[in-house]
């Protein structure tokens, strides 16, 4: 099928889809007139039941914790998939790094970038841990904290220190951290089963005051494990892609 014909077929299909969608819009309550009962119910009872003032994280790790286990294992499988797909042809095609760096005239990293990224790397780690450990109080959580933690490692690479980046995140350690994160989440659920409760029940003490860091039981613990896993998965994916390029800067 030629590309003109493919484009006309797509336009016809898209017109039909848009027509059906806009016709279906007529039956919705408008934007801003939220009808459904679940949101109101959860907002009313979540703080009382779990002592967590961050209701979105409570929904993520407590009321719909089973879905989050599934999503986390999608992330785990994707990171494993990247490592597997990009490891396949390594033996055949890799040339020594010296060859490839010779004709790629990479300019040395400017001092401004080196200074600012190395200064920001430390505070970024602190910010990432703060985000991952405060899921139950304020807008934060394991997923966001994990990515901010991964960003701290990327800052080291951006400062031109490719070898330092490799030394900070060796593949074995990153793999192990990711496995601990993913397995820890599943283990928290299985511990509940071992105690005779349904999977992923909140079995730890709920704490005294809603909104404290130590409150809300397993929500804080699960968020910590999720943060570890997301950070390790992203660092692993980026270091795999970096190995593919193998561009070592001139002064590292």
């Amino acid at each position, binding site marked *: 099928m030629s590309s003109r014909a493919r484009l006309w077929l797509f336009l016809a299909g898209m017109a039909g889809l848009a027509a059906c969608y806009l016709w279906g819009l007529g039956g919705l309550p408008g934007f*801003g*007139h939220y*009808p459904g009962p679940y949101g109101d119910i959860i907002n009313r009872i979540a703080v009382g039941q779990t002592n967590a003032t*961050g209701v*979105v*994280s409570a929904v993520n790790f407590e009321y719909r914790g089973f879905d989050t286990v599934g999503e986390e294992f999608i992330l785990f499988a994707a990171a494993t998939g990247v490592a597997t797909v990009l490891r396949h042809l390594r033996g055949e095609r890799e040339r020594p790094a010296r060859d*490839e760096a010779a*004709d*790629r005239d990479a300019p040395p990293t400017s001092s401004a970038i080196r200074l600012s990224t190395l200064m920001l790397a430390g505070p970024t780690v602190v910010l990432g841990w703060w*985000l991952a450990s405060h899921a139950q109080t304020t*807008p*934060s*959580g394991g*997923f*966001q904290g994990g*990515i*901010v933690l*991964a*960003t701290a490692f*990327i800052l080291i690479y951006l400062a031109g220190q490719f070898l330092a980046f490799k030394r900070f995140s060796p593949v074995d350690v990153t793999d192990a951290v990711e496995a601990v994160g993913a397995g820890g989440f599943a283990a928290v659920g299985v511990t509940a089963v071992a105690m005779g409760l349904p999977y992923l029940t909140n079995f730890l003490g709920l704490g005294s005051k809603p909104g404290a860091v130590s409150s809300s039981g397993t929500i804080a613990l699960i968020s910590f494990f999720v943060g570890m896993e997301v950070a390790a998965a*992203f660092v692993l*994916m*980026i270091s795999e*892609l*970096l190995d*593919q*390029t193998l*561009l070592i800067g001139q002064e590292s």
Partner: protein
Amino acid sequence: MAVQAVVTPYSVSPGLMDVLQVTILVLVAAGATAVVLTRDPVRQVIVLSGYGLLMAVLFLAFQAPDVTLSELTVGAVALPILLMLALAKVRKADSVRDRERDGERHGKGDK
């Protein structure tokens, strides 16, 4: 069924909220069009990063700060880095292959 606006430190008057949401929705629609119409992949990565920033502001206007945090770190930082690394790999392989082909051609031409 409209909701009676309760005054908290974070409340904004509904009229202002409407204007803000309509503006940012129009900008997001324009941003999506710009991302698709940029054909050069390297430029498109930069436009995608700006689009991620616009989406983060949209989520903030929809009263969802958690999703804003995620979209900001993922869409404006992590995704462009992954895309740039993949692009660097592809272009480097292209340049190496072109160099080999030129070398062969010059070698054969000399004979």
